[in-house]
């Protein structure tokens, strides 16, 4: 079953991970389980437990999660068998949801199956209520996956729930992930691997950078961050007192921070003792993908794309540069193909079928694009990516299973253009926001490299000219220029709402400003900044009276009127998908005979490690006040250490942008 090399690339869709340690698990090494777990026998202290001492707010806690994973030769070939026994304690009524369980498996071609389901509730008083066969429901999720779903009876705060099952699989490229950390605390979790097959696995485990570690005499490492302790030995992985995994805003995916064990097949040992690399080098992986019928063949065989190329050529004109041509191809293909929102990197259909049906998955669209570009003489290669929702890319090992996205890299002799079909409002060079996850892998057998994915700074510029009347009423003109992802969002919103008062709704400040003469520039040319201009007037001037003292709020618009970070501290880094900048340039013409009485003070904040900053300057020239506010974020990731500076900066911006100017009549 291992002779079909191409199978390597067909196993995918598993989560990827970030790596800080690596072990090779090989051959069987037997361990006896340190703690025995016996069905229905609950230690008295766990039965009596009312709150979990290490986290008194926990609604439930995983008391124990034991897994024994066997790899062996079965009647029908290599197989794996996982025996799992899990025990959860419900501590609070709000945690009753943890009594609903779903165990997914791949039913397609009988790859995976589950047997021997057993489950029971043990009440606080020790009474046991077992589930019957009829209480386990198998439900088809989609063509490939099903799930066994069940819920525990008679569950109250204080109940203990336990279940066990046998899971079998014929898929051994990746073994099932073992999560050592969950959304509720884990008191004890352990996996023991027994491998009787001539297969070698690379074990990947992300452990926190913040933990102290020491080596174990018998091999392996212990990581400690009391009360948590993580022990990783060859073939045995366990954690004690893992804290609950908690969601925070501005992160990629929580999966990037979950402590878990993943296994990837790395070597096959043949009968003659020769070892064959299964995880090869990036170069070998690229060669393999190149020959894959659902990948390389799609963009290398002319016959799939011939017809498409003929149609594309009709949009070229004689005077076009290579860059113009690239944009023209991109726009033409985008106008004819709709993305079905599916993330993948293997094309399920041939690209001529994709063209005929007018749409397809990410792989289908972008491999088609690469095929067309190559036929037109461009140097275009696929770039594989793991999206933000899928987890950070492991750059040290060429593991194909971690990817879930493909786009095109086009070399025009002046750096790499990222080309990603699927949204006509996104220009060439700007991939889908979810694909901005630090790294990508350029699949070029001659020069296969991990590249960093970066995009130009996303810039919003607001230019305001304000006239102030003697009653303090404001009028004037406003111009905004949006680039990059801002432009994309603004164009998208505009297209979904064609009403005449759109700009009034967008910038009218809930009716406080009356907006007129709105015009747009480059609305259709997505490669240029999206520019909107309009005149404004303070909506209700009627109640204003002439006054010796006038108050003016000079900042009419900002995305940062409210500070985004509210907690004092932070567990995980803050992650912005792309660098951005917001610039407010304001000039205010004072009414005759008035002078500035008070002005917001100037301010200059710089973030650590050149991460960005805020600069606020003011100047008075004759009867005009000039204000410039500039917010910039230049790095994507801020370590928890830098979080306080980041938080304070945005607090200061919100405060500064609410400060008024006071004008006073000259006596």
């Amino acid at each position, binding site marked *: 079953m291992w002779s079909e090399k191409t199978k390597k690339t067909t196993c995918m869709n598993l989560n990827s991970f970030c790596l800080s340690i690596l072990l090779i698990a090989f051959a069987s090494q037997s361990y006896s389980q340190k703690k025995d777990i016996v069905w229905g026998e609950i230690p008295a202290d766990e039965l009596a437990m009312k709150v979990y001492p290490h986290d008194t707010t926990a609604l439930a806690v995983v008391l124990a999660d034991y897994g024994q994973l066997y790899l062996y030769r079965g009647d029908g070939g290599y197989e794996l068998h996982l025996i799992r026994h899990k025990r959860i304690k419900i501590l609070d009524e709000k945690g009753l949801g943890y009594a609903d369980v779903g165990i997914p498996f791949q039913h397609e071609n009988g790859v995976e199956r589950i047997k021997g389901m057993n489950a029971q509730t043990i009440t606080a008083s020790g009474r046991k209520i077992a589930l019957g066969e009829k209480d386990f429901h198998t439900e088809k999720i989609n063509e490939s996956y099903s799930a066994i779903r069940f*819920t525990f009876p008679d569950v109250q705060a204080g109940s203990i729930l336990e279940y066990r099952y046998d899971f079998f699989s014929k898929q051994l490229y990746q073994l099932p992930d073992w999560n050592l950390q969950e959304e509720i605390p884990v008191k004890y979790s352990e996996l023991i691997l027994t491998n009787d097959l001539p297969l070698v696995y690379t074990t990947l485990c992300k452990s926190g950078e913040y933990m102290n570690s020491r080596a174990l005499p018998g091999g392996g490492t212990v990581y400690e961050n009391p009360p948590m302790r993580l022990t990783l030995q060859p073939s045995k992985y366990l954690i004690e007192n893992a804290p609950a995994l908690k969601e925070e805003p501005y992160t990629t995916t929580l999966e990037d921070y979950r402590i878990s064990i993943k296994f990837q097949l790395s070597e096959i040992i043949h009968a003659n003792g020769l070892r064959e690399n299964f995880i090869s080098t990036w170069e070998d992986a690229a060669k393999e993908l190149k020959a894959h019928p659902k990948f390389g063949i799609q963009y290398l065989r002319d016959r799939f794309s011939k017809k498409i190329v003929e149609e594309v050529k009709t949009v070229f004109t004689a005077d076009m540069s290579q860059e113009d041509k690239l944009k023209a191809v991109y726009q033409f293909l985008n106008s004819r193909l709709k993305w079905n929102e599916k993330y993948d990197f293997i094309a399920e259909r041939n690209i001529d079928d994709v063209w005929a049906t007018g749409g397809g998955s990410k792989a289908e669209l972008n491999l088609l694009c690469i095929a067309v570009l190559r036929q037109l003489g461009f140097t275009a290669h696929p770039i594989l990516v793991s999206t933000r929702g899928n987890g950070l890319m492991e750059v040290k090992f060429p593991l194909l299973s971690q990817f879930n996205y493909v786009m095109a890299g086009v070399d025009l002799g002046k750096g790499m253009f990222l080309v990603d079909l699927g949204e006509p409002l996104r220009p060439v060079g700007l991939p889908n926001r979810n694909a901005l996850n630090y790294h990508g892998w350029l699949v070029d057998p001659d020069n296969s490299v991990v590249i960093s994915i970066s995009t130009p700074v996303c810039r919003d510029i607001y230019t305001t000219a304000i006239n102030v009347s003697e009653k303090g009423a404001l009028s004037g003109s406003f111009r905004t220029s949006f680039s990059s992802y801002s432009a994309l969002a603004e164009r998208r919103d505009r297209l979904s709402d064609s009403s005449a008062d759109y700009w009034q709704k967008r910038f009218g400040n809930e009716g406080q400003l009356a907006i007129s003469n709105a015009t747009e520039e480059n609305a259709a040319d997505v490669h240029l900044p999206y520019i909107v201009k309009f005149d404004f007037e303070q909506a209700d001037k009627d109640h204003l009276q002439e006054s010796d003292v006038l108050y003016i709020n000079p900042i009419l618009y900002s995305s940062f009127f409210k500070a985004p970070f509210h907690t004092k501290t932070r567990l995980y880094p803050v992650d912005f998908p792309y660098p951005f900048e917001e610039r407010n340039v304001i000039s205010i013409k004072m009414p005759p005979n008035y002078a500035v009485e008070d002005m917001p003070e100037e301010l200059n904040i710089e973030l650590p490690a050149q991460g960005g900053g805020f600069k606020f300057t003011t100047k008075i020239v004759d009867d005009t006040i000039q204000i410039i506010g500039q917010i910039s974020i230049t790095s994507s990731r801020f370590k928890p250490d830098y979080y306080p500076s980041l938080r304070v900066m945005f607090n200061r911006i919100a405060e500064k942008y609410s400060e008024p100017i006071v004008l006073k009549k000259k006596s």
Partner: protein
Amino acid sequence: MNQPVLKLLTMALLLLPVSLKAQLDLSLSAANIPDSLVKEANEVVREDRTMVSIKSEKESYIKYRRVVTVLNKTAHGNHLIVYYDKDSKVAKIEANIYDAMGQFVRKVEKSEIKDYSAVSDFSIYEDNRVKYLEVVYPNYPYTVEIEYEQTLKGINHCVYPALYLQSFHSGVQQFYFAIDMPAGQALHWRALNIELQPKKQTIDGRDVYIWEAGNLKPVAREVMSPATSTILPMLLTTPDKFQLNEYSGSMSSWKDYGAFVNELFKGRDLISAELKSVIHQLTDNLNDPRQKIDTLYRYMQQNMRYVSVQLGIGGWQPFDAQYVWNNKYGDCKALSNFMKAMLNEIGIKAYPALIYGGENVEVEILPDFARPFFNHVILYIPDQQYWLECTSKTSPPNYLSSFTANRNVLLVTEEGGKIARTPSFSTQNNGASQYTRISLEDTGAAQISIKNTYKGSYSDLPRYFAINNNTNDFREWVADYSKMPSFELKTWAAKQSSRSSECQISMDAHSFRYASKAGKRLFVPTCPLQAEHPGVPEDVKRKHPFVIRESYALLDTVELAIPQGFRIENIPSEKIDLSSSFGEFHLQVVKEESRLLVLRSLVVNASTLPADQYGVYRDFFKDVAKWENMKIVLVAIE
């Protein structure tokens, strides 16, 4: 017809081209659509044909065909959703795509039809499934031809079609609905928002009813709109007699349908001696029947949880009370039935109430036409006029949230079905009353303390905070709604009343820059945490009336301590009184020695108002927003 001939005929049909349609069908060209159907439309339905054949009281067969020209990407006509289960199998789904000229592009492949479990998020298991198709084609306009056929059994059969003749933003050229059934069997039908009569004829011992309509101009969806079933043309049909497993029933009236549901509930309220003794222990020493109800309701909330398991006729028939007692869970029917059984034990009568739950009432239940549009069950206690939501672990007794308030329900009584209406919110029991103290420092920083009381639908979120006690959630909520650019939360607490919907929130916070400072002046917002009222989107061209669904009252008292050395320089307005047919707003600022009192009230009454009043409604709330946002200017005394 003898068999071989039939086979031959079938063979001949199979040999015809894939589609019986011509490859270029000019009638499908988008150019042939009258302009009046395109204006404000996302799609134009060229043809919509539903044919239902009632085979027996237990089974029917549906054939459906739609030809729709899709004008832009917000259209829905290119989507098809077919619900099915193991009894109601889908016989076929086919679709073809034509371009703007009516030129055949392609047939939709089987692999494009997705098959999902229809299990809702909150359900552990249902056998309902869904076939879903979204036809995609990148160039607008294009035309889709969709057909499907399905055998209907069980609940899918018992509920006859209720069809909108058009959806919002959709023009319709031709609508056709036919239903045929054994001659003499009665059919009930009703057309809403359109004059429509069927053609009825009897062919080969079957009564055939045909409704046809056409040239329906697009109708725009509007905000704050009344129930869709009071706006769009709709056709309701309902069986005189039907059979569901061993139960036979009728939908000739609500009385009959209620009697049928009563049969499904019958005998399911038997409870064990163990539960009986629990009930008596809890209630025997109480005298007030309301106290008894509250006690049992709280007992159920604490001990049972909501889990949905729906199999077979489980959509209509509850698991019995003993099942809930054994498992400590049930769905809305089972929990309501369980509560009913407990009350029954102490001689309190309760009726299950079938209801269509949702924040917005999409379909009004007609009192005089029995077509079930229900997705939920609650419980009604007639002697106390008491309502119980049995799926909530947190709701106070006799409290119905916006999900179930103010709408018609079907009470299932021993005398059959009865239409009743759930209570609506009033300005007395819905809203917020806020007391805020701001102690301002000369830097613009402030100590802020609030004590707020919430009632009715305004209490749902505070109750969530009271139960979950999650500081992060609370902090995020304050950040979203407050006027403080940044703040530090000191202490907070949320409490719920055990007997009414009332909830209280108290909070102490420090805001580094509550007032903006410019030189010697401070600009002070009058209320840091404003109770939310509905935003009013611009909608100048509305055609239909608009509905203020709930009455509410928001009261604010703000006490602002002025820092030493400052005096009031400007108050935009010291007294404002706005009044209109639907509500009132009052604002008063009282100046005292070293403090200011800001008193505000906004009272809005539930009402349905004509379309031309929308501008007035909008202006009213624009003004309210302006006065809520006003800042008081303080200046340092020189």
